């Protein structure tokens, strides 16, 4: 926490200026919302090649929550942490276009095969290095749908966590008040920082990219991306060092390799069943009064309504 007291000479009053450091956890995921036939491989895992890579939707809600805090508390710094292969750097650029200050790509071959436990460990080590006041993440990613990583990171950091967050009611240098979206209503909780928050999709959608920020940062690349770049960026990067996106590997975050990758992942996928909805599960109804009545009778008898 960085707090400074500044004297406003005219009014001769003290104002408390605070600035927060927020880490947003974001993941690049295959777009599983509109899947075709080749979305799954024969072994039942996601065929990442066949689906476009997108910003995990609830992580965008998380970024918006961080940006809202920044709107309320000027001087707040928003750092994106994303774990993945080289192309996941796109998530950092996207976040910067939307208002994040900077980001780190956590990338290393040694992470390959990590389950949520190993992933949480790696992320918690990266969070320690970034040393924020608040961590905000999406509730879950649309590829695995586990909703485990956020809570596990909090556990490993030994921080309190607020899940299913929908709105920041208030925030100051030591506490945050959050409205949570629960199954049967809402709950407002207060918590001391540092805290980890996971955000629900009912939270406000993320603001769009800013054109001028996009123009400024579109050439931002990680060192790995630069090696594959056709354009010669040497001179440009000398003039604009801010364009270089930092990559963090196992050594940078001081992680124990035994806790990473396959060796750090107790989860083993034993079997995957495909659930195909059969026609018999559905009813075809017209808009006639008779059919509407039939539907209502069915819904009431199965206690869906009434």
């Amino acid at each position, binding site marked *: 926490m960085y707090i400074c007291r500044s004297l406003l000479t005219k009014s001769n009053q003290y104002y408390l200026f605070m600035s927060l450091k927020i880490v947003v956890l974001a993941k690049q995921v295959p777009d599983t919302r509109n899947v075709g036939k080749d979305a799954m491989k024969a072994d039942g895992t996601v065929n990442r090649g066949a689906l476009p890579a997108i910003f995990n939707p609830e992580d965008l809600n998380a970024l918006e929550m961080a940006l809202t805090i920044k709107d309320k508390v000027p001087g707040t710094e928003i750092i994106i942490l994303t774990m993945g292969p080289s192309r996941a750097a796109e998530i950092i650029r996207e976040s910067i276009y939307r208002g994040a200050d900077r980001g780190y790509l956590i990338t290393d071959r040694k992470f390959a095969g990590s389950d949520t436990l190993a992933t949480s460990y790696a992320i918690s080590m990266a969070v320690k290095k970034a040393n924020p006041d608040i961590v905000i993440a999406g509730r879950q990613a649309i590829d695995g749908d586990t909703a485990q990583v956020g809570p596990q990171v909090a556990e490993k950091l030994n921080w309190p966590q607020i899940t299913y967050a929908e709105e920041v009611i208030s925030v100051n240098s030591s506490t945050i008040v959050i409205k949570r979206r629960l199954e049967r209503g809402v709950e407002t909780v207060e918590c001391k920082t540092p805290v980890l928050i996971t955000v629900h999709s009912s939270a406000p*959608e993320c*603001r*769009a*990219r*800013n*054109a*001028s*920020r*996009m*123009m*400024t940062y*579109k050439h931002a690349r990680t060192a790995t991306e630069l090696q594959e770049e056709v354009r010669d960026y040497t001179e*440009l990067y000398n003039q*604009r060092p801010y364009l270089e996106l930092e990559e963090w590997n196992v050594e940078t975050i001081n992680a124990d390799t035994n806790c990473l990758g396959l060796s750090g992942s107790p989860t083993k996928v034993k079997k995957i069943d495909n659930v195909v909805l059969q026609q018999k599960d559905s009813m075809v109804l017209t808009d006639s009064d008779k059919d509407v009545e039939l539907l209502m009778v069915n819904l009431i008898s199965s206690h869906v309504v009434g």
Partner: protein
Amino acid sequence: MANFYTDNDALNFHLNHPLMEKIVRLKEDDFKEAKKYDQAPLDYEDAIDTYDKVLEIVGDICGNIIGPNAESVDQDGPQLVNNEVIYAAGTKHNIDALTQSGLFGMSLPRKYDGLNLPMVPYVMAAELVSRADGGFANIWGLQDCAETLHEFADEEIMQEFLPRINKGETMAMDLTEPDAGSDLQAVQLKASFDEKSNRWLLNGVKRFITNGDADISLVLARSEEGTQDGRGLSLFVFDRKDGGMKVRRIENKMGIKGSPTCELVFKNAPSKLVGDRKLGLIKYVMSLMNSARLGVGAQSVGIADAAYREALKYAYEREQFGKAIIKFPAVYEMLTSMRVRLEASRSLLYETCRYVDIYKALSHISTQRPLTPEERNEMKYYQRTADGFTPLLKLFSSEYCNQITYDAIQIHGGTGFMKDFPVERLYRDARITSIYEGTSQLQVVAAIRAVINGSYLKRIREMEAVKVKPELEGIKRQLVELTARYELAVKSVTELNDGEILDFHARRLVEMAGYIIMTYLLVNDSMRDDKFEDSARVFLNIAVSKFNEAESYIQNFDIEDLALYKKESFESKTE
């Protein structure tokens, strides 16, 4: 997550037109600003990539915010509270989103916090916003007025007003009055110089002012006492913060209901002179109107695109007689003809934008350094061509927009007549496009000059000289034949040396030229992408039949009959 840019290949296709390289180089003055501004493109590829990314942002906001808000904005509309306009909640939301994304002041130079976009990508953004909400497109599109300040105002005014546009301040152009609509020379709002306060004061009434309660307004006013015509008018910039202007009423309109059309009363409203006195109408407003006409072109294409998509979707979903109605010739004929008219007007839109881009960029360069003789010729050539193409674009795109939204309702049948589907709103929104910023009839008055002075024919000949691939030879042969017949028709009317007959047939002659030009543009598009070949063929079918109709009217017209038409209109007036 809908994106109106990425779901529309046509825009990227036009963005990558071969002429863009020249446009970008001129606009970016050989990429000198890259040293000064981190936002500036490094080279041509970088610039196109930037435009593409900007449009993707625009498409995102249009698909996910402005489009979904359109219905409530149409229903709620703006309110007049204490002589001020309060926008509908959706309108406010749209403005906030676009401001947050830095999409106001898109074509302004970087030193005024603009994005320095050429007309082509800027107009594409206007098309996208119009597809999302044609009414809102006015409020956003009035940032054009900033371009007029940039072109003609002095540095002090530019410093004061231009950086505010990027912050989301809105603009208006206050031209028309109760007795000065199409005839702006009759403007009476008075501007008098007050020696004491050393500023201009505005007094009078403006009517039918789009977004009249804007933060910054350009006001056409009579600064020369005792004058009666356009030469006594000057242009002023009025800052709402300075007070002296009240909104008396908001019109209750048929369409574009989200866009407040205001009656304004100025009472000793302080303002600043833009450029020189007496040039208000004859120079500045003429330039303003030209860009506003491009804007209506974009708006027309955008609304028509939205209507076509709705109709296509419905025709696939709606089943009658045991099959989707799109399977019936009567329906698929309509849809295809809607699509090709849309494509033709879009090609005409971006062709015109390219001409405007080149001459404006050269004209801007001429303020920095003397142009070479070739550059000067080029500037003149593109300006003249743009002057001919702009009214043609406004005429065709707005009339097509009306036809396409009409057909879109027809495809929906009785459902389309209900308020349940967006086509009903699109149809109402479309209606104004052929009226404001100069009616179709006034576009003909401007366009007929390009018929008479041979400017259209010159451009047609240039397009004729371009070699086409063998598959397109057939279309081209027909166009060459139509061109010969067009020349004959023009000759047959002009050799009568009768101004009234020329005016009587003017629209027909302008349209004949238009059909030839638009088909050529689709042929050009087919050269770069085979996909347009079918469109060129179908459009030619439409063009030929429309051309024949106009030609036959002219050929069979007995001059003596003119008296019948006159009698008709004069008598009905006295009734």
